[in-house]
């Protein structure tokens, strides 16, 4: 259909399609369809083994193909004028795949899979990832919109996928409403941009603005403002973040993990694409506005997180603050800024996934759910969970010997070099505020008198899982038993955080290649 976008009624040229470049996307979407069908076959082994294995295989294949077609610099169009592959698209899409694998591992034993069925769950997840990949490679307003919706709609369903949990349904509905408002706003903004420049192609728009169309053209300004607002909803940038804590808390925790890292990465990928590539010439107009948003996110996010007892809400608020940090890189608009954003997105994944994995592990055995008290005395009872959480918190707070320190360093570097030194100071002040709540988590784990916690299934989880249909016929005790895969994810992510905190060079190198994708950057 995208092909038809460029068809005049004259002779129609079928758009050239580069199947090699599209292979990762195809593998993900194909995997989505495959697991959907595979999930239809009843039986415990299908649900527990075949479907997750298929999904993970699809994602790993996608990663492999991405590495295969990776080449720094230059843009290769895949579908003429609609979709292209460059290092920015490929780089962030790897983040999506990794986040997807982590999510599937984390949800292996979770009640979500039992309640909505393994096939549907994995298929929706893969579909959402497909949307993200589409979004990351979008060269066209239409593709942007399709990608965004393909990303969002499965997530609405996933949020509400614990149909027996009231919170889950409420979270789904709330996310649907807020997300749709965001999409509609974005759509209107894109429409105005199209009207102002007469084209839906980003490159054409980029050339038109500032030459054919004046920079202060009212349509362009309004369009940019509305588009920024719409994307701010997705990236949960203050003041469009109000849905975040409720939805993060209500959604099934593996889904929350996925939203926290992957959705954010996708939203920032398109922010980079739209502003630092498409509209870079209009930077004088949107720069200050985005800078204001960044500061607002840093302040509001950190302030909001201080009072939280629920770990999921705390991480949601800290996510708002971190979005502010990443946005600073977008605001700077220099190549260094883009690299910084990419690097921070990359390290943001292991930090958060580690934290969420520990939360999941605790929620399954502690009747205190995701309350901070569920972590009490963890350092004594199970250090293998306490250390990943500690490392994650230290990294988010920006302590040295973790990737967070390098990230902060890099961000401040970019802001100062880009002439936004005050933004760097804002980041520093934000980090100061954030110490209060990150350190509290650590204190709860290591410094409060531990109590022996008898692993017992939380009643809310045990009772419905008995009534599960044959879709998922394993006992709730599976949740209570040791969860090797969750511990594995937590420890692996923590290890990555420390590794990239001490040997960041390879990641920085990748970040530079990603930055080289956007040629128009200052």
């Amino acid at each position: 259909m995208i092909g038809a976008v460029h068809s005049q009624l004259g002779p129609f040229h079928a758009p050239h399609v580069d199947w090699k470049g599209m292979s990762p996307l195809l593998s993900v979407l194909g995997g989505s369809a495959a697991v959907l069908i595979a999930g239809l076959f009843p039986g415990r082994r299908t649900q527990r083994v075949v479907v997750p294995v298929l999904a993970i295989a699809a994602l790993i294949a996608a990663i492999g193909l991405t590495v295969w077609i990776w080449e720094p610099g230059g843009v290769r169009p895949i579908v003429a004028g609609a979709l292209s592959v460059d290092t920015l698209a490929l780089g962030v899409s790897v983040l999506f795949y990794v986040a997807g694998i982590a999510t599937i591992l984390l949800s292996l034993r979770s009640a979500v899979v039992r309640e909505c069925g393994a096939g549907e769950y994995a298929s929706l997840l893969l579909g959402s990832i497909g949307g993200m990949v589409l979004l990351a490679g979008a060269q066209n307003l239409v593709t942007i919109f399709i990608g965004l919706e393909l990303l969002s709609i499965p997530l609405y369903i996933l949020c509400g996928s614990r149909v027996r949990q009231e919170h889950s349904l409420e979270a789904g509905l709330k996310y649907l409403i807020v997300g749709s408002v965001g999409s509609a706003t974005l759509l209107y903004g894109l429409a105005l941009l199209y009207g102002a420049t007469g084209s839906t192609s980003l490159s054409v728009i980029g050339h038109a603005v500032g030459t054919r169309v004046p920079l202060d053209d009212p349509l362009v300004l309004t369009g940019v403002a509305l588009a920024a607002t719409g994307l701010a909803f997705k990236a949960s940038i203050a003041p469009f973040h109000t849905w975040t804590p409720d939805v993060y808390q209500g959604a099934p925790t593996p889904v929350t993990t996925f939203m926290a890292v992957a959705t954010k990465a996708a939203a920032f990928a398109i922010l980079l694409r739209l502003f630092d590539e498409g509209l870079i010439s209009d930077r004088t107009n949107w720069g200050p506005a985005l800078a204001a948003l960044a500061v607002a996110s840093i302040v509001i996010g950190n302030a909001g997180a201080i009072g939280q007892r629920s770990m999921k809400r705390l991480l949601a608020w800290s996510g708002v603050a971190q979005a502010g940090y990443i946005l600073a890189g977008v605001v700077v608009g220099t190549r260094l800024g883009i690299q910084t954003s990419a690097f921070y997105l990359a390290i943001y994944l292991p930090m958060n996934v580690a934290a969420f994995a520990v939360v999941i592990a605790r929620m399954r055995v502690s009747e205190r759910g995701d309350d901070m008290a569920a972590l009490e005395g963890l350092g004594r009872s199970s250090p293998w969970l306490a250390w990943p959480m500690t490392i994650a918190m230290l990294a988010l707070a920006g302590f040295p010997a973790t990737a967070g320190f390098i990230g902060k360093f890099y961000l401040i570097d970019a802001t100062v070099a880009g002439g936004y030194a005050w933004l760097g100071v804002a980041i520093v002040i934000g980090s100061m505020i954030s110490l209060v709540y990150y350190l509290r988590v650590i204190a709860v784990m290591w410094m409060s008198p531990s109590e022996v916690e008898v692993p017992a299934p939380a009643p809310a989880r045990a009772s419905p899982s008995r009534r599960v249909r044959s879709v998922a016929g394993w006992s709730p005790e599976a949740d209570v038993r040791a969860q090797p895969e969750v511990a594995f994810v937590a420890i692996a992510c923590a290890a990555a955080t420390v590794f990239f905190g001490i040997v960041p060079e390879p990641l920085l190198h990748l970040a530079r290649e990603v930055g080289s994708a956007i040629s128009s950057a200052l």
Partner: protein
Amino acid sequence: MGIAWFLALSAFIFCIGAGGVITRRNPLVILLCLELMLNAGNLALLSFSRMVGNRDGQVFALIVMVVAACEVVVGLGLIVAMYRRRLPIDVDEVSELRG
């Protein structure tokens, strides 16, 4: 009559939709208002497509229509599920814990 009037109408519809989403409580009505916002976008796309004289806007509008349908269906599905759970169908009651 000029393109401006179509744009004005679409802007008007968009604002009505936005206002409705903000003020209304019944999720069904909110879904309606969301449709209003999306279709305001469609109207803008179509009128622009007429103005600049290429079809991109029209195709965009087609896709938006489908997407809108999908969103509504998901929304209805969630609402039905909540009815089945006998949950309060009121987006304010829906969130016991705010921001």
